[in-house]
């Protein structure tokens, strides 16, 4: 076979530019970050950064979920309402367990596990509709969105879902470590100090948990057979079928996985805000889809990596925080995300064509 040797060196000389070009999203993130550093005081300090990650956690989780679905060439519009559903369910279950006399710690644990278990169901239905009934993902997940919304409202029946044992609230707003100036480092429990002493808070719990989750799923996507099959299905579903890949089962798995992550997001939400809302995640879906696309994945499926998606999610998180801190109301965020989204896709095509 003839070799396809790249034409000599005109391309090689532009090493740095080409490197930067293919990682443009990272460059953009850095520039964006610097921009906001100048716009507002105190953007670049540790606590602001932690706040950034703290509030960005939900977008990160949903972005991971959407990434899997989008790689298969599908889309999941229901994740926001699954998140809301889970936030409500977790509160209800934990409250019920506590009322039944269970130790708060056990109640919280059991409640979380139960919520996650229940939270896989919507995904299974989505997957079943898409894989076995051949319903287009847009329709199937849109239908599920409504169903989750309806069930959520049904459960709360007009009463706000609020109130969790202190343990849950502590986990939700707590940090991994605390440093009292003068040297005492304590884990998980915020040390009680005199007034006026500032305790440095290091890394919120939920950020740690999210980082672990993201790492696990990044591994699954890149290094396991399941992940490989997800890419194959998105790349050429026919080829995947004929190669003996159990496509239907994999799709079921992907949507269930996404639903699981959204439910996890719901639990996190409940811990963060000590309340549950049906529409807690309504605007998060679009943000997470934007994050995945800004991170370079193609809407047609077959491409996208966890790292770049996280960069995309960071772009949005930084935007959010930056606008909030510089006093501009978040109305601008929508406009900017919209513009960035379109530009991102255009950039991706441009970069790809240059290769």
């Amino acid at each position, binding site marked *: 076979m003839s070799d*396809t040797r790249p034409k000599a060196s005109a391309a090689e000389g532009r090493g740095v530019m080409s490197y930067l070009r293919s990682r443009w999203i990272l460059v953009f993130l850095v520039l964006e970050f610097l921009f906001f550093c100048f716009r507002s005081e105190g953007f670049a300090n540790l606590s602001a950064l932690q706040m950034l990650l703290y509030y960005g956690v939900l977008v990160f989780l949903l972005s991971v979920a959407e990434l899997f679905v989008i790689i298969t060439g599908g889309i999941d519009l229901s994740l926001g309402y699954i998140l809301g559903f889970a936030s409500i369910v977790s509160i209800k279950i934990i409250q019920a367990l506590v009322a039944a006399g269970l130790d708060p710690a056990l109640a919280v644990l059991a409640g979380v596990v139960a919520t996650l278990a229940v939270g896989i169901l919507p995904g299974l239905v989505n997957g079943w509709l898409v894989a076995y009934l051949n319903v287009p993902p847009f329709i199937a997940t849109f239908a599920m969105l409504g169903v989750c919304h309806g069930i959520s409202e049904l459960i709360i029946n007009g009463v706000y879902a609020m109130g969790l044992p202190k343990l849950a609230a502590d986990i939700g707003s707590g940090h991994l470590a605390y440093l009292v100036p003068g040297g005492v480092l304590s884990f998980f429990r915020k040390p009680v100090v005199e007034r006026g002493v500032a305790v440095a808070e290091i890394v919120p719990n939920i950020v740690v948990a999210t980082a672990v989750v993201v790492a696990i799923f990044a591994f699954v996507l890149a290094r396991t057979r399941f992940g490989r099959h997800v890419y194959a299905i998105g790349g050429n579903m026919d*080829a995947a079928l004929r190669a003996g890949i159990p496509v239907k089962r994999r799709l079921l798995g992907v949507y269930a996985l996404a639903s699981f992550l959204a439910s996890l997001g719901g639990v996190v939400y409940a811990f963060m805000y000590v309340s549950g809302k049906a529409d807690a995640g309504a605007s998060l879906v679009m943000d997470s889809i934007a994050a995945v696309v800004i991170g370079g994945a193609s809407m047609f499926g077959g491409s996208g990596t966890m790292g770049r998606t996280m960069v995309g999610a960071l772009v949005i998180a930084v935007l959010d925080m930056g606008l909030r801190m510089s006093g501009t109301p978040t109305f601008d965020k929508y406009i900017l995300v919209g513009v960035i989204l379109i530009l991102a896709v255009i950039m991706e095509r441009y970069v790809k064509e240059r290769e």
Partner: protein
Amino acid sequence: MDYLLETRNITKRFGGLTAVDKVSVGVGAGEALALLGDNGAGKSTLIKLVSGVHQPDEGEIWMSGERVRIESPMDALAAGIETIYQDLALAENLDVGANIFLGRERMRRRLGVLKVLDDQGMRDEAQKVLDRLDIHIPSLKKTIRTLSGGQRQAVAISRSIYWDAKVLIMDEPTAALGVAEQKKVLNLVRTLKDQGIGIILISHQMYDVFEVADRLAVMRRGVLVGERVVKDTDPDEVVGLIVGSETVGKER
């Protein structure tokens, strides 16, 4: 001769239409059988019966002298029947190694516990089989999107060889290729024959047929209308069989 793969009176109907009508045909080891016929003749359906995509309404399939039941594509693969479709069934977004091992990925253990994709191992194996078939692909790490039509064809063929195909079915292998690459693919077919693999070739290219096929079988409207040994016939006679010799008058 003893056939490697053979169909006996195989029949398939769709509603009121008989797509394949009592067709008995076979291919031997190290032999290439060309399957010819106009559109709608039933060639595709016959192939799909043998590769497990469809189930026959009547008739049997025999491999190496034993009856086999092929009820799914996996059964066909397990029996050593590999099919290379016109669209090659390759995933553009994956590299050569990933494509060759698609669906049957190799794993290795990390830290004793974790089962992880063995990408490097798959690439090494891919290189071996490419070498065995004398195919040159510069970089195995890139996605196959960067490969030419001929190279992709080679990857598809390598996949089948790697999995020890006994019978390889190729659907219009040279269709979208330039002249030089067509020659390369035909050479590959000869290499495969030398290695004892039975090949069924669907092709409209009379040149290909007369270059590499040993025997040919012609179908028309679901029926097998003629079998010939390639060196004992000529293109005119073959065309006559394909369209129905009433249209092509020729003294024989």
